[in-house]
Structures are given as structure tokens and as C-alpha cells.
């Protein structure tokens, strides 16, 4: 009997993941053992400490380039950059989640088990402290995302997908008010998410089948094997292409690309706004991190085959996002469609098969994450007696009531519209440049054309806020607590700084743009 060879494990390189998952478990214990009134503070601090600790470890690992635990996890430039981005954005999202001064008790339901619309429900809505399970759930999700962007084989990727998706399904259902919407969003997200992950898994199975039969290599789903198989597997390429397609579907679903975007508007609208912010920022980073890795590492040599198809998807995504955003009347839905369109622009970056493309995509992800978090932070502040006032007509004249927040929101909208001196513009340049360089002019043209359409809904909001007279129903903007204010300011500052002086982050992304196999 041969000796069992244990794979080497580089704990330092894995430490961010381990920290997040460990603290998540710890959070579950806190739920069980810490008295209710201390839980909020404890959980929040714990989660933040975890995120910051993980971030420190990411920075500490900055120069690591390795593949560890038997090829399951790759710690390389993109991994570290994206993990860092996820962690920073997650920290901001946690600040939004932890806010309790904007609304008494926070944005989350006190007892998820209370039947919606019942008397108990109304009572909890009036001010019971929100559930603190959200923190461990968030921490789990972040941990899952960290694995997702680092996953170096398809199985790990699948598991990471589930690890970060499942908590998100739950988080969506936890809104304090309008719980029917929240639950509906959770159900839709869950059913469709599960549906898409089934496709992903079937894709994994097919790719596994494809990797068989190479002379000196065992079958497997790690990217090195897949990469080798794409080049010289004797198996039927039908397996490869069908598998690749199904894998792509699973990932594109998470990335909210058309026609797999259908869940996005409903979920973004129904979920508690801090969770929406978290999803819009972090899920996007994670999903595109995985897309980058799958298509740049595993299937790099099939680029000629997948680029046109994914290109069509990208164009469709931009188009659907932009055109449908035009007539939206709910600010969260509008931002959802905007995020769909942005997924299209990100895909343009993904499809540039160069380091510059990877760097551009990563830069865009980080830049977009900051802006979108700030945008949703403002949305949490515009409230009336019934909670957030998300219908656009209610925002009329907001600029006259609270010029500062309206100004901030305008700035972010300008960033989304890609006006220079905002990170949005730099991001667009960062993805369009490499795309054009690799001959994908049609994608750039489509991106430009849809940007024109997309500018209209943003402008409509600006017109609403500034050029319309405030009415009786114009809600007030609540003065944010320290947490939201911090998150908002970080988001806005990052949008501005990345728009004016993008060089440091851009350099970082460029240096980090090489994958290890």
C-alpha cells in the first residue's frame, strides 16, 4: 500500500479565507451564547475585525503567487486584488448593514419567523432590534466569495458559489419592512439561483468527462487539467463546448448578464437595501473574478470560440440594461438595470484576452463597487414614515431639500454615466482600451451606443432631484449615523479619487493581472 500523499497547504496564503469562515462560525456561536442586547455590537465588531484582518492578510500576502491545497486554490495577483476589493467593499457593506440610527433597530427584521403582515410583524417593524444573524451570514458570504475568486478547480468553484449564494438568499428575505417583497425576492433569487447552479454543475460534469483520456494526465476539473485538455484531449469537443456553455451560464447568472439577468431587478428591489448594496458590489466582483479565471485560465485556448458568443451576450446585456433602465420608476430597480448594463461593460473587459483586459476589468470592478455602494447608501437615507421612499416620483425636488445628499447622488450618477473625473469614466476607458486593442471594436461601439441610452435614466433622476420643484410628498433625507456616513464617504471619495488619480490602483491592477496555473 502506497503512502497517502497529503497535499501541501499554505495556511498563510489561505488565511483570509480561513479568517472569514472561522469568524463566521464564531458568529454562529455568538448568536447562541451572547445575550441579545450585546449581540449587535459584538457581531458587528467581530465581522468588521474579520474583514479587516482578512484584508491585512491579503496585503501581507501581496507578493504570493502559488497554487495550494492540491490545486484547489490559486493565490495569485487577480486573487489577491479581487479578494482585497471584496473585503474593502464588504467592510463598507457591513457598515451599511450595521446602521441602526437611520431606522430604529436597523434595516432587518427582528424575527424572520414572524409571519409577514401579521400584528406581530407590524410590532417588530416599529422598532424591535433587527436580527443579528445577518452578520454571520454576511461573513459566510464574504468567505465564499474569497474562495470563489481564488478557486482553481471547478468543484471548489461550485462549492464556493453555493457558500456565498446560500447566505445571500437568506439575507434577501430579512427586510424589516415590505416583507412580502423581501420574501418574494428571496424565493425568486433562490429558485433561479439553484436552477442556474444546476446548469453550472452539469457543465462541470461534462467538462470532467472531456478531460478524460489524455496520455499522461488524469482526468480532473482543476484548471491546469482543463487547460491541458482544451489543447489535446481526445474526447469529443461536444463535451467541452456544451460544458463550457453550461459553466458560463452559471457564472453569467451571478454576474447578471442577459438573458440570465431576469432575477436582478426583482431581487435588488425586494432585498433590504444594505444587502442589495452588498450584492451589487461584492457579488459582482466575485462573479467576474470567477469568469476571468475560468475564461482566462481554463479555457484560454478556446478564446476564438467563446469570444463571439460571450460578445453577443455582452452586447445583449448592455442593451437590455440600458434600454430597460430608461422607463424604470423605482430607484432600486433603476440601479439594478444599471448594474446589468455595467455587467455588459465588464464582459467587454473579460473578453479582451490580455493582461490589460484583466487589469481593466478588475479596476472597473473596484471602481464600480465603490460607486454602487455609495448609491445604495444614499437610497437608504431617503425615507418617509413607511421606510425608504424608492419611487422616483418621490425624489422630485430632493436637491432643494437636501442639496448635499442630492449632490452626492448626482455625482455618483455622473460616475455611472461615465463622465470624466469620476471612476466610472476611468473604468470605461480601462475596459474599452484593451478590448479595442484585441480587435473587439464592435463591443466597444456597442458599449458606447448603450452608454448613450443609459445616460438618459441617470439624467432623469438628476432632473427629478434638481430641476423639479419639491412637492408635499417629497421625503426627507435622514441624517445618517456614523456607519452609513462612513460608508457613503468612502464610496464617494473613492469614486472621485479613482476618477482623478486612478494611477495607483490601476498600477496595482496591472501588476496583479497575471494568473498562475
Amino acid at each position, binding site marked *: 500500500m502506497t503512502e497517502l500523499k497529503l497535499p501541501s497547504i499554505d495556511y498563510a496564503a489561505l488565511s483570509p479565507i480561513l479568517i472569514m469562515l472561522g469568524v463566521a462560525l464564531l458568529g454562529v456561536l455568538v448568536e447562541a451564547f451572547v445575550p441579545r442586547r450585546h449581540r449587535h455590537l459584538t457581531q458587528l465588531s467581530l465581522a468588521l475585525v474579520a474583514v479587516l484582518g482578512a484584508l491585512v492578510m491579503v496585503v501581507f500576502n501581496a507578493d504570493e503567487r502559488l497554487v495550494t491545497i492540491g490545486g484547489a486554490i490559486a493565490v495569485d495577483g487577480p486573487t489577491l486584488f479581487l479578494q482585497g476589493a471584496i473585503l474593502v467593499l464588504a467592510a463598507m457593506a457591513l457598515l451599511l448593514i450595521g446602521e441602526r440610527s437611520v431606522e430604529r433597530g436597523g434595516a432587518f427584521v427582528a424575527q424572520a419567523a414572524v409571519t409577514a403582515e401579521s400584528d406581530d410583524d407590524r410590532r417588530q417593524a416599529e422598532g424591535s432590534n433587527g436580527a443579528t444573524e445577518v452578520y454571520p451570514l454576511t461573513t459566510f458570504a464574504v468567505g465564499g466569495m474569497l474562495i470563489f475568486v481564488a478557486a482553481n478547480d471547478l468543484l471548489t468553484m461550485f462549492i464556493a458559489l453555493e457558500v456565498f449564494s446560500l447566505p445571500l438568499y437568506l439575507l434577501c428575505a430579512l427586510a424589516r419592512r415590505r416583507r412580502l417583497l423581501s420574501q418574494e425576492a428571496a424565493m425568486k433569487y433562490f429558485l433561479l439561483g439553484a436552477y442556474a447552479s444546476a446548469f453550472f454543475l452539469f457543465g462541470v460534469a461534462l467538462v470532467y468527462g472531456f478531460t478524460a483520456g489524455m496520455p499522461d494526465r488524469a482526468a480532473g476539473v482543476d484548471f491546469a487539467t482543463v487547460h491541458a485538455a482544451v489543447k489535446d484531449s481526445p474526447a469529443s469537443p461536444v463535451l467541452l463546448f456544451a460544458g463550457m456553455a453550461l459553466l458560463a451560464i452559471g457564472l453569467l447568472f451571478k454576474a447578471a448578464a442577459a438573458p440570465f439577468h431576469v432575477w436582478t431587478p426583482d431581487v435588488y428591489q425586494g432585498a433590504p437595501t444594505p444587502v442589495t448594496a452588498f450584492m451589487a458590489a461584492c457579488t459582482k466582483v466575485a462573479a467576474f473574478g470567477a469568469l476571468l479565471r475560468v475564461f482566462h485560465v481554463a479555457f484560454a485556448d478556446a478564446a476564438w470560440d467563446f469570444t463571439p458568443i460571450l460578445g453577443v451576450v455582452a452586447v445583449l446585456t448592455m442593451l437590455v440594461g440600458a434600454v430597460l433602465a430608461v422607463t424604470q420608476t423605482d430607484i432600486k430597480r433603476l440601479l439594478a438595470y444599471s448594474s446589468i448594463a455595467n455587467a455588459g461593460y465588464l464582459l467587454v473587459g473579460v473578453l479582451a484576452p490580455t493582461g490589460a483586459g484583466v487589469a481593466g476589468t478588475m479596476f472597473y470592478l473596484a471602481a464600480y463597487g465603490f460607486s454602487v455602494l455609495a448609491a445604495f447608501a444614499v437610497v437608504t437615507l431617503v425615507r418617509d414614515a413607511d421606510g425608504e421612499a424608492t419611487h422616483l416620483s418621490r425624489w422630485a425636488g430632493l436637491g*432643494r431639500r437636501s442639496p448635499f445628499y442630492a449632490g452626492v447622488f448626482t455625482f455618483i450618477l*455622473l460616475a455611472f454615466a*461615465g*463622465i*470624466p473625473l469620476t471612476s466610472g469614466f*476611468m473604468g470605461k476607458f480601462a475596459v474599452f482600451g484593451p478590448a479595442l486593442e484585441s480587435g473587439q471594436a464592435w463591443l466597444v461601439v456597442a458599449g458606447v451606443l448603450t452608454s448613450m441610452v443609459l*445616460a438618459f435614466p441617470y439624467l432623469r433622476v438628476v*432632473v427629478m432631484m434638481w*430641476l423639479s420643484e419639491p412637492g408635499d410628498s417629497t421625503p426627507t433625507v435622514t441624517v445618517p449615523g456614523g456607519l452609513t456616513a462612513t460608508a457613503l464617504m468612502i464610496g464617494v471619495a473613492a469614486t472621485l479619487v479613482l476618477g482623478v488619480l*486612478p494611477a495607483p490602483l490601476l498600477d496595482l491592477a496591472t501588476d496583479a493581472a497575471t494568473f498562475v496555473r
Partner: protein
Amino acid sequence: MSDFPFLSVLTVAPLVGALVVVLLPRRRPELAKQVALGWSLLVLALSVVMWVSFQVDGDRLQFRESYPWIPTWGVNFTFAADGIALVMLMLIAVLVPLVILASWHDAESSKRSVPVYFALLLVLECTMIGVFAAADVFLFYVFFEVMLVPMYFLIGSYGGHQRQYAAVKFFLYSLVGGLFMLAAVVGLWVVGGKTLDWQTLTQVDISTGTERWLFLGFFLAFAIKAPFFPFHTWLPDAGGAAPAGAAALLVGVLDKVGTFGILRYCLPLFPEASKWFAPWALALGLIGIIYAALLAVGQSDLKRLVSYTSIAHFGFIGVGIFAFTTQAGTGAVLYMLNHGLATGLLFLVVGMLIARRGSALIKDFGGAGKLMPLLAGVLFFAGLASLALPGTAPFVSEFLVLIGTFTVNKPVAVIATLGIILAAAYVLWMVQRTTQGTLNPELTGIEAMRRDLSLREKVVVAPLIALVLLLGFYPKPVTDVINPAVQATMQDVGKTDPAPEVGSVQEASR
């Protein structure tokens, strides 16, 4: 003194001023106005110093400054000015204080923050200066787009009838052009070897097909900005809705970015494509001249009318640029300056009329000259400048454009000359319907209509009138500055002026 970083200081100064104005206590709008005015005068003073330090026979690009910005993309903060840019910078520096002074009470009627209005004007000045001072395509693009934002709010927040529609249309229309240009900028960056430095890019050879596409991207943006037919419909709306001061800047300066862009970017960077496209551009310019002039005749709103006249004038500028002769090119640049002065004046005067009457409709006036002879006189003078009467500055530019065009393309020049007849028609008819004829009895009842120009208003119009006359009689100081830059541009395109058909007359007699 020439080592002084004029351009960056000029760009940043108004921005700082805007911050100061915004931070002033809200209770004291007067102070905000004074500070804004003072600040813009400071900028003017600095610009004058810069004008003096410009060496006419020196390098093409002077006052060059370059600071690294985004090394990964080879993008730098590079500022530099040639004669063309210098003239436009001067125009901005002159117009902004006057506009601020002219808008003294404009913002008060809008129920919105007065200091913000003046801060926006200063921000606008910053972006306008930046766009002309930039010598890096990326930087240019940045200012080109950002410029929309303050103007959007000026129109949208402080404008008149239909301001929302006009503001959104202005913004979207310009953004559409800007995004096409973005695609072209990205393309240029790729083919130019990952640099966007203007001087480097002029040396780059681009394959014919690519060059044409890139040219079209840039041209479309500039054609919308300028605006040329058929991309002009936003201007009457924006010009009609904007407050008069902002409209003066919009038409006087902002739109010049389009024509400036063609001269600075389209021609030198894509010379072959420019030549390839020139017939089309000439046609567009020509249509603009005739079409917009006819439309101006048919307008019933004063500000829309002036906007249409501007479109006609931009047609002349377009023709001048794409004729590719020194005279036409110099004329086009001079036209940009003169049109800024003349139409700026026209917009400001029309604004004064409208502010008094409370309506921009021509039929609401009639015989106003009886009540306000001085204002009517200034309106008439501005009209004369607009129809390019000799003795006013626009004559020189129009003459240069036409004569330069004639040497290479006779039909175009002849048809364009018809535009001067139409110009007389729209100006005189406008003057007749507003200030001449029987006095509209409604006007006598309006107290404001009896007030002729106030001292403040006189101070606003006097410098413009003086400049229009001065440059009408003695344009040489300006043409001397423009000329080398235009000649260099023509060299970039590879065009030389045609010799007279019967040569050697000059040599024989001089």
C-alpha cells in the same frame, strides 16, 4: 515670466474661485457676486499677461507643462497653447467677467441659490479654459465632457421656459457625441501606441480605414458640439432656455470647442481622412449657412433666433476650416473669436430686453426703440456685427473665410456668400420687429421697459462693442497670433495655398 505655469494656474484658478464662492455665507449673495466678478477679473489679468508673453514667431505650442498622470496608459496632464488656443482663452477670460456682470440679477428670479449660479459660471470657466489648454487628448476629452455638467445645471436650474427639456437634450446630445469620441479616443490610444500626447500622435501613421473611422468619431462629437447641420437642433432649445449669460457662454465659447477640436485634433491627427471628408464637411457647413439663416428668419423667439444665427455662423467656420487654405483657416479661427464677441454681445443685449419684458417672443415687443433708444442701438449694433458689416470684427473673418474658400472651391464660396444676404434679412427683420415700427401699447405699461441701459449694463456692453470695433478696423494683432498656428495646421494636412491664376503680379509691383 514664460516659465510661469500660466495654463494650469488659469485652469485651476476659477475652480478655486468657485469653491470660495460656494463657501461664502448664503445670506450674502451680493458678496458672492462680487467675489465671483473679482475672481474672473483676476483670471482676465493673468490671461492678458499670458497674451503678452506669447511669442508670435515662437514655437507652435507654448507655455507647455506636463505632469505625469496615469503612466499605465501613457496619459499626462499636458497643457500647451498655440495661437488658436490662446485666442480662445483670451475670449473666455474676457467674456466671463462680462457675463457675470450681466447676470447680476438673473439668478434672483429663479428662486434658487444665487452663489451657486456664480460658482457654476466659474466652474464652467475652469472647464472651458482646460479644454482649450489641454495638449493631451485624454485631458482634452476629460474637460470636453466635464464641461457639460456646469452648463447642464446652469440651463436646467436657472433657465427659462422648457429648461428641463432643453437641459436634458443638451446634455444627452453632447454626451452622444462625446461617447463616439470616447470610442475614437480609445482607438487612437491603441493605434497611437498607448499614448495620447498630442504632439506624439501627430507623428503617428494610421492606416486609411482606421484613420477614417477615428476621424468620424471625433468629427461627430465636434459637429454636435459646434453644432453643424443636421446635429443642431439642441442649440435653439438650449440657447432659448438658458439664462442669457449662460447662453452667451454656451454659444460664444462652449460651442467653439467643436470647431477648435476639428482644427486641433481632426486635421493634424487625421490629415488624410480630413481631406477625404472635406467635401462632406463643406456641404454640411454650406447647408448650415443657408438653412439656419432661413430658419432664423422664421423664428418667433429672440433667443432661438440668435441661436439659429449662430448655427449659420458655425457653417461659415466649418467651411473655413475645411477649405484648407491659410486665409480660410485664419478666417475661421478669427470667426470663432469674433462670433464669441458679437454673438455674446447679442445674447447679452437680447437678455436685457427679455429681462425687461419678461418674454422672449418677438411679437411681444415692437417699437421698443422709442422707450429705450440706447438699448435698441446696442441691439442694432450687435445685429450689425452679426451680419458682418465692415468695420465690425466679424466682417474680417467672414471675408477671410470666403476669399480663402473661393481660391480653392468657387461654388462653395459663392453659395456661402448668399448667406450674407440672408444674414441681413434675419438681423434687420428682428430689429424691425422688436425696436422699430409702432410702439406696442402693452410695453408702455411695463415699468422696466422704460429703463434704458443702467450703468452696470453699459459697463457690460462697452468693452464688447469696443473690441468688436477695434478688431473690425485693426485685426492684425490677432491674425498674427493665429496665422502661424493655422499655417502649421495646413502643413499637417499637407495643403498649400493655391497660387493666383495669373501669377507674378505681386512680385512685379511690390
